[in-house]
């Protein structure tokens, strides 16, 4: 990495900005601003900083509609919004997907719109931490805030997660390195355990690495639980780990003062999916008979947890909420985006602050290419290539304020630092405007039907 001299040429500093990248939601960022643009970011990791610094790279600036020749043409806001509203009002099985990179305030209007047309509202949890949410519904959730972990934890376990690459400041700011009230020496007072088939960057700097075999999670946690119940393990190796190591680990986990387990997609998306989390949570329930253990999912986007918390509060279900019959329904495999797309059921797809074109399995993207797609986003991406209507939004936490929820469920108000490009609109305004326009079309339809 080449040396980069510190930025000294700036007009003003906006302090205590919030990072809009991963679920850590670091709220100690300083933005260095010159001529209405961010020229430097202090305290952020490279991922967070580059998202802010390269904000204008491939930025969507004007609304676009795809013409008969299949080319995106720049249009005015009225034309684009009318076209989108017309598509939504005429749909039979619409999906409004995304929401994880926008504010709670935008979601509020999304729920109104979804309820009005009978859509499926879903977010990125459907392809990441959905299994965690199902497991929480089954067996509960021993949760703690990141602050508690920083001040108290003397054992940190990362399982199926590689925060050194995906959440770079997680270890530095919350879990491993910071000095806490009861952990005055920081890293030296803590034991870090990584459970991951891969010898990841996190594993390299951990005290203990447990490289169990792929898809062996469920059997491995079951063996730890059996060991905690005092059973002498029969098999010599469980999921590729020698039985002595499992007994030793169970003993070590029992004898800490405060343990915290963080899990990522390595746990949620192996063979037994939600049952891995189910088992891990129950393992902590067992450990809580001896000491204090908590667990937190490593959420990816900065507001992916926000959508789940908001939906669970408003509609009773965290994600994949189907309003088709007029009331909210939730059923995995039936009301989730991927299933509806691979079954080719969805007929209009609106994506808000997400990139299904890049993240979805091939079969789902194939169907997306065949149906009308409305995109509300700030950057050009694979989803723009399959979009029929493009509505450029604004950058939450930089160009417009909004509320988001950190991975541990702490709400954070993200403040505005600079003005958005003149031709863009706030996500909140776009969704509200769509709602108004769809309402008008529906009212007209109802009037015709009654005559």
């Amino acid at each position, binding site marked *: 990495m080449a040396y980069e001299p510190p930025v000294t040429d700036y007009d003003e500093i906006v302090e205590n900005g919030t990072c809009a990248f991963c679920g850590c939601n670091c709220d100690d960022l300083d933005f260095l601003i010159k001529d209405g643009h961010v020229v430097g970011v202090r305290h952020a990791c490279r991922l967070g900083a580059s998202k802010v610094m390269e904000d204008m790279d491939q930025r969507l600036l004007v609304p676009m509609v795809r013409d008969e020749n299949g080319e995106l043409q720049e249009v005015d806001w009225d034309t684009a919004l009318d076209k989108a509203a017309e598509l939504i009002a005429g749909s039979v099985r619409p999906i409004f997907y995304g929401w994880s990179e926008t504010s709670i305030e935008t979601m509020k209007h999304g729920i109104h719109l979804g309820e009005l047309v009978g*859509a499926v509202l879903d977010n990125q949890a459907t392809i990441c931490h959905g299994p965690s949410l199902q497991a929480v*519904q*089954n067996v509960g959730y021993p949760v703690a805030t990141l602050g508690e972990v920083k001040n108290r934890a003397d054992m940190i376990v990362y399982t199926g997660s590689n925060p050194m690459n995906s959440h770079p400041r997680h270890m530095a700011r919350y879990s491993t390195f910071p000095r806490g009230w009861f952990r005055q020496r920081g890293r030296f007072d803590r034991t870090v355990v990584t459970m991951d088939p891969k010898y990841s960057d996190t594993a390299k700097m951990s005290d203990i690495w447990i490289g169990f075999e792929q898809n062996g999670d469920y059997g491995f946690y*079951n063996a730890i639980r*059996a060991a905690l119940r005092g059973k002498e393990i029969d098999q010599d190796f469980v999921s590729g780990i020698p039985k002595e190591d499992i007994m030793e680990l169970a003993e070590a986990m029992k004898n800490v003062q405060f343990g915290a387990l963080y899990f990522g997609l390595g746990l949620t998306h192996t063979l037994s999916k939600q049952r891995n989390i189910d088992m891990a949570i129950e393992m902590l329930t067992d450990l809580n008979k001896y000491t204090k253990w908590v667990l937190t999912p490593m959420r990816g986007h900065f507001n992916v947890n926000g959508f789940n918390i908001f939906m669970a509060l408003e509609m009773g279900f965290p994600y994949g909420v189907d309003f088709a019959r007029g009331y909210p329904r939730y059923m995995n*495999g*039936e009301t989730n985006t991927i299933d509806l797309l691979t079954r080719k*059921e969805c007929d209009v797809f609106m994506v808000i602050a997400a990139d299904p074109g890049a993240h979805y399995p091939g079969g789902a993207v194939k169907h997306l290419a065949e149906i009308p797609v409305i995109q509300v986003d700030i950057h050009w991406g694979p989803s723009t290539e399959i979009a029929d209507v493009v509505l450029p939004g604004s950058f939450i936490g930089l160009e417009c304020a909004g509320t988001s929820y950190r991975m541990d469920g702490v709400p954070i108000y993200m403040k505005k630092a600079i003005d958005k490009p003149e031709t863009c609109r706030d996500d909140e305004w776009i969704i509200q405007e769509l709602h108004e326009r769809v309402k008008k079309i529906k009212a007209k339809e109802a009037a015709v039907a009654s005559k």
Partner: protein
Amino acid sequence: MKIITLTLKKKSQIALEFDELIPDKVFNWEKADFENYQVPVGNRRFPLTDYFDIEVEGDAASPEEVKMILDGDFGRVKYIGCKMSAGEIIVNGDADLHCGAEMKGGKITVHGDAESYAGREMKGGELEIMGSTREFCGCSYIGDWRGMSGGKITLHGNAGKQLGECLSGGEIFVKGDCDILAGIHMNKGFIQIDGDVTRWPGGQMKNGNILIKGKLGILLEGFVYDSIVVDPEIDGKSFSGKYIKYNGDIAVNGKGSLYLNAEKNREYL
């Protein structure tokens, strides 16, 4: 006896929902009632006649006297026989999600494959699937610890993942193979699997019985060897042959029993 025949003439890409077309609700319907009925499709309702030819024969004074015959590929018709308490439904083709979910009585026969959630939260009656089914057959609603609590599911083909999840009564009989985590979280009831099982049957089970006649891939550490039983009798049924009996899942202080065919699972002896 009233025989209602629906013959598919156009398959919808968006799934139809049949939760209102169960014997309990349609036993006094005439042909005209079916023709006026609008079936839920996505966020709309469309006439049933768009999709099916309808024939109604005979009369019925109660749901018990109703026989519904669904001819054609019903692979995009959800909730067939959902919450029914009497009568009979025969599907001559595949069935979509939630076939026989929450049913209390009567009988459903599927002469094809059934999608996931077949027999979810079933309380009684009989569900027979001639083909295979996918995930969560005889399971609970997400988050509930009480799954299927009565009745019988017979699967002539294979079962998917998490068969009989949270089973709290009733019986599931699989003639084919079964994927991972059969009987996870179960607390009562009986699962019989004649074919092979990939891994981890009975994870976190509290009570109940699982019998596997085929070969097992991986057994969970939470199961403790009990004994070898010859010709065991489980739930009033007797089985011939030698079985290895395990108790578990001790991770949840479970008192369930897992019977493994000793002949085919010699490495566990």
